[in-house]
Structures are given as structure tokens and as C-alpha cells.
């Protein structure tokens, strides 16, 4: 019985104990032997360390890494000694209830209130632990809420690391996670980057290599050799680790917001004109690794945009057409009348997440919100595209032939756009999303 309960607990628990070690099962490319070696070494350390005081520091490090595993061990002991087997269930229920309560009431109630809800319950160690988990999830919810309307420049790097899921919410683990992830990335480079000239990777590397100089060509930062090399490494490693899609043109654009934001951590002045040779090797390595991991997190959510036949894009362009036909019939009919197809202009909107339609600063602001929204890049983006299109309805309706419409839609005048325009765009997208989330058949024609 207890075993069954604990199984349930495992399933529902958001965090697994000992989560610090990466899981490589069935991943591509195959397990890095050097990492395995470390893993085994560290594991064996666990067994031997209590006897050998010499290695105390590495043991402490390990213990810190896996402190959550020890916690759970304590829990289990208590469960077995507990008179009632329902403790675990009630514990899970409590934690869930606390979270639900918190989610529902966070607009009205101050954080202390929901905490007291949890501690009203006959307190024991587990309840306190649950509430600290809830605290973490409350903090991330709070962070998302605060970030949605735009993140201040000074805190954007750390906020993006957290929102993307790259950095753990638990403050104690952050430093180590960053260190480990950065080392892991440069492990990939060491192991795989030389293979770029091998025949089976030639096409991938060639495509990346010719696209790099064409990435934001008007921004001097991206024309610097050091920066271009960083981009090549990031894109190549990502591509060979994701063979289902590989590198697809447009993915190069998606690295740039991360790169600029993480660079801004070290640069006071104008980032777009900054000379990166002024930075230390260490700084550049951190920027590179963080950009890689955050970009990977982003792409994980939209990979079907880039697999064969790009089904994600096809689906979203269809959805956009459907949405526009319901929210602005006039624009929709105007397109039909002049035989403009949505795919002719919106393909790029999806493939490059509107990055080709907006100045880089606007994309960065847009991504504050995308990362704060659930499924921001994969789902909310659709509503942003619809709002973006409707924003130009007057200009669209003024054009009275196919070519005029297409030239307009391909070159929308956003060059002077800033936070204000993006803020309005997002507000409209949010309105659309809620209108249709609650009533999928709303305005059904």
C-alpha cells in the first residue's frame, strides 16, 4: 500500500530527487563518455567518501547537488512509521490544494495569505516542505506575472534564464547548474565541433556558414568574426543534436535575442555596436553557453516548425487564416478577392517568429512576454500574428491589387516601433486569446 502511495507521489512530484545528474537515455548524440566517467566517479565517491575525509569537499559538493534526494529519504522513513497510510495522499492533496488556491487567488490575495492556508493544517515536516515547493512555484508564477508586461533591462538576463527553464527556481542550485551546463556545452564543442567538416555534416555546416554573415547584417555586432564563430558553434551543435529537424534557415535569427540579452549583462552602452574583443574569454564562454541552452529550450517547444514539410508552420498559418476570418471578415475577404494566400506572407512570420518583421529591440520585448506566457512561442504567437495583421487593416484595405498587397505585407513599416507598439500588440493578442480560449466557436462563420 505504502509502495503504491509513494508511486503516486513520485508521479505527481514535479522534482525528482537527485535531479542534478543529466539523463542521457536514448538521446542523440550518444552519451559523452567523459561525462559518464565523471558520473561514475562521483557515484563511487558517495560510497567511499564517508570513510575518506580527504575528499570531503567534493563530497559536500555532491551532497549539495543531491540534497533533494536525501530529503525524500527522510520523508519515506516518516511515512512508514506513520500510523496512517494516508499521509502521503493527504500531503499531495494539500500541496495541490495550496497551489490551486494560490493560483486562483493570486490576483486578490497577498502571498502570506495562501501560506497560512497551508500552515493551518496540522503541521509536520512534510507539510512545511510542500509549502516550500509551493513557495518556489509561487515565486515562478509571480515572476511570470511581473515579466509579462516587459522586463527591465538590468534584470533581463537572469529573468530570461529563469523563465526559459534553464536556471532552476531554487536559488541554492543556480550557481552549480550554470557551471555544469556551461561545462556540458563546451564538452559538446570539444567532442563534436571538429566533425563539421566530415562529409555527413558538410551540408549542415555549409548552410550555417553561409547564413551567419546574413544574420542581422545591419547590426555591427553580428559582423564581428568572434561573434560569428560563436553563432556557428551554437547552431552546429544544436543541429547535430536535433537530427529530426537539423538546421533550418531562420533558426539563426532565434539565437540573436539571447545573445544580445546575455551580452547586455557585461555592457553598459549600446550593445548593438559593442566590440566583443573587450570581453574576457570567460564572459564570452558564459554568453555562448547560456545562449545555446536558452535557444534549445525555445526550440524544444516549436520543433515541428522545422521538421520535414514544416507541419507546425502549415498548421499555424491555417489557424491564423481561420482566426482572421472570424475576427476581421473584411480583411479576410479582401485577401480572397485579390487572391492573396496567408502562406505567402505568414510563412515567414511563423518560421522566424516575426523577427524579420520587427526591429531586434522589439523582438526582445516580445520575448519577455512569450517566455511568461504558457506556450508563448508555440501558441500565443499565433494571436500575436493575428493582432499584428489586423494592426495594418487600414493599409491592407487601401491596397487594391495582388502585388500591392504582397509588397505591403512583406515590408510592413515597423522600423520605428518600440515598447509602446509591442505593448499594444500584446494587449490585443491577449484579448484575442481569451476571447477564443473561452469560446472556441466564437464568431464561427
Amino acid at each position: 500500500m505504502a509502495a503504491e502511495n509513494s508511486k503516486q507521489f513520485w508521479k505527481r512530484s514535479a522534482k525528482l530527487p537527485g535531479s542534478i545528474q543529466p539523463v542521457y537515455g536514448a538521446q542523440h548524440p550518444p552519451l559523452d563518455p567523459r561525462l559518464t566517467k565523471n558520473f561514475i566517479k562521483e557515484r563511487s565517491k558517495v560510497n567511499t567518501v564517508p570513510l575518506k575525509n580527504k575528499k570531503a569537499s567534493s563530497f559536500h559538493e555532491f551532497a549539495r547537488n543531491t540534497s533533494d534526494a536525501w530529503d525524500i529519504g527522510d520523508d519515506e522513513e516518516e511515512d512508514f512509521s506513520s500510523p496512517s497510510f494516508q499521509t502521503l495522499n493527504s500531503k499531495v492533496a494539500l500541496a495541490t490544494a495550496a497551489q490551486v488556491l494560490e493560483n486562483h487567488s493570486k490576483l486578490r490575495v497577498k502571498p502570506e495569505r495562501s501560506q497560512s492556508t497551508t500552515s493551518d493544517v496540522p503541521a509536520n515536516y512534510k507539510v512545511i516542505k510542500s509549502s516550500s515547493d509551493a513557495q518556489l512555484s509561487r515565486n515562478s508564477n509571480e515572476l511570470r506575472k511581473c515579466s509579462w508586461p516587459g522586463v527591465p533591462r538590468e534584470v533581463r538576463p537572469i529573468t530570461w534564464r529563469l523563465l526559459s527553464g534553464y536556471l532552476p527556481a531554487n536559488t541554492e542550485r543556480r550557481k552549480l547548474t550554470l557551471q555544469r551546463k556551461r561545462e556540458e556545452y563546451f564538452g559538446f564543442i570539444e567532442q563534436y565541433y571538429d566533425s563539421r567538416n566530415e562529409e555527413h555534416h558538410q551540408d549542415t555546416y555549409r548552410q550555417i556558414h553561409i547564413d551567419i554573415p546574413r544574420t542581422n547584417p545591419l547590426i555591427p555586432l553580428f559582423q564581428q568574426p568572434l561573434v560569428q564563430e560563436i553563432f556557428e558553434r551554437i547552431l552546429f551543435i544544436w543541429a547535430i543534436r536535433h537530427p529530426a529537424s537539423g538546421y533550418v534557415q531562420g533558426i539563426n535569427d532565434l539565437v540573436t535575442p539571447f545573445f544580445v540579452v546575455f551580452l547586455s549583462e557585461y555592457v553598459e552602452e549600446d550593445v548593438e555596436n559593442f566590440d566583443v574583443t573587450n570581453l574576457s574569454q570567460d564572459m564570452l564562454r558564459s554568453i555562448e553557453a547560456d545562449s545555446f541552452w536558452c535557444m534549445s529550450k525555445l526550440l524544444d517547444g516549436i520543433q515541428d516548425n522545422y521538421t520535414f514539410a514544416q507541419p507546425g508552420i502549415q498548421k499555424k498559418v491555417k489557424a491564423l487564416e481561420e482566426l482572421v476570418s472570424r475576427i476581421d471578415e473584411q480583411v479576410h475577404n479582401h485577401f480572397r478577392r485579390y487572391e492573396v494566400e496567408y502562406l505567402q506572407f505568414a510563412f515567414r512570420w511563423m518560421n522566424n517568429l516575426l523577427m524579420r518583421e520587427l526591429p531586434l529591440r522589439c523582438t526582445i520585448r516580445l520575448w519577455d512576454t512569450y517566455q511568461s506566457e504558457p506556450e508563448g512561442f508555440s501558441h500565443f504567437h499565433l494571436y500575436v500574428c493575428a493582432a499584428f495583421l489586423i494592426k495594418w487593416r487600414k493599409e491592407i484595405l487601401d491596397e487594391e491589387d495582388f502585388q500591392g498587397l504582397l509588397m505591403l505585407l512583406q515590408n510592413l513599416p515597423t522600423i520605428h516601433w518600440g515598447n509602446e507598439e509591442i505593448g499594444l500588440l500584446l494587449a490585443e493578442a491577449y484579448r484575442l486569446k481569451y476571447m477564443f480560449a473561452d469560446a472556441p466557436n466564437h464568431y464561427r462563420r
Partner: protein
Amino acid sequence: MAKAYDHLFKLLLIGDSGVGKTCLIIRFAEDNFNNTYISTIGIDFKIRTVDIEGKKIKLQVWDTAGQERFKTITTAYYRGAMGIILVYDITDEKSFENIQNWMKSIKENASAGVERLLLGNKCDMEAKRKVQKEQADKAFSSLARDILLKSGGRRSGNGNKPPSTDLKTCDKKNTNKCSLG
């Protein structure tokens, strides 16, 4: 409303990624060389009206992305094209070898009898030339209607003349043979 043109031609531009399709069309449609070129995603649309022997010819050009992954979207535009311009880079042998594949794509997707034009780009980089003119002539001699046309991407050497001039010349010489005529 007065008719804005006498003839309308729909053209399509295909070829490997990076051979300079977009530069070519920008130079042709806007009559300038864009040094800050950017990769094409999916498809792009350009327009140009030319005056040929007193007639106003309107050209609608679909510029395509060269990467294989975009073929699903780009092949949809073959059918409506009246002329297809195949572009390779004279400094890149692979792009010339791939012309065969692009030809195959045309066969599979375009209307029968569509006009084709083979174009070796980047003639300003003569020193780096890998594909000889004779090679191109020989390989595609069976395609009587194909015209090998050299056009430099940049304003230097051979490329001084904008492609539009070249295209017009070829048109005059080859009336009924070239898609532009």
C-alpha cells in the same frame, strides 16, 4: 482605370542557397545592389515593370529560399510560373551540379513547356571561377531554349551592367525563346 501594362509575366527564381538569387532580383527590380543581403525564408515577391519596344511588360517574380527544407512551400509556386530562372554560382561547383536536381523539380512541379533560363551568377569573382562557361553550355546544350547568361552580383567587373540590361538583350536576341519575350 487605365491598363497599367500590356503584358504580365510570372517568373520564378530557383537555385541553391547562397548563389545570389535575391541579390539578382533586388538589383533587377530595384536597380541597386543590396550589400546587406539576408537569407530568403520560404518565398518572397518582387515586381518590376520594363519597357520593351514600346510595350509595358510587368514582371512578377517569386524569389525562393534555396534550402531543401523549404521545398514543400516553394514547389507550390512552380505551377503558376511562366518562366523559371535557374541560378548557380560560378565559384561553387556544387551549386552547378545541383542544377540537375532543380531541373528535375521543374519537371515534377511546373507546367509543361515552361520557359527556363540558366544563369551563372557572381561573374565578378572570375579568379575564383570553378564552373567554366563551356561546361554549362555543354551540359545543357540539349535544352535549346536555355540561355546561359552571366551576371555579376556586385558593381564591379562584368557586373557593372545591371541584370535587367542583360535580360533585355537576351530577350531581343532570342524572341520566342526566352521567357521574358
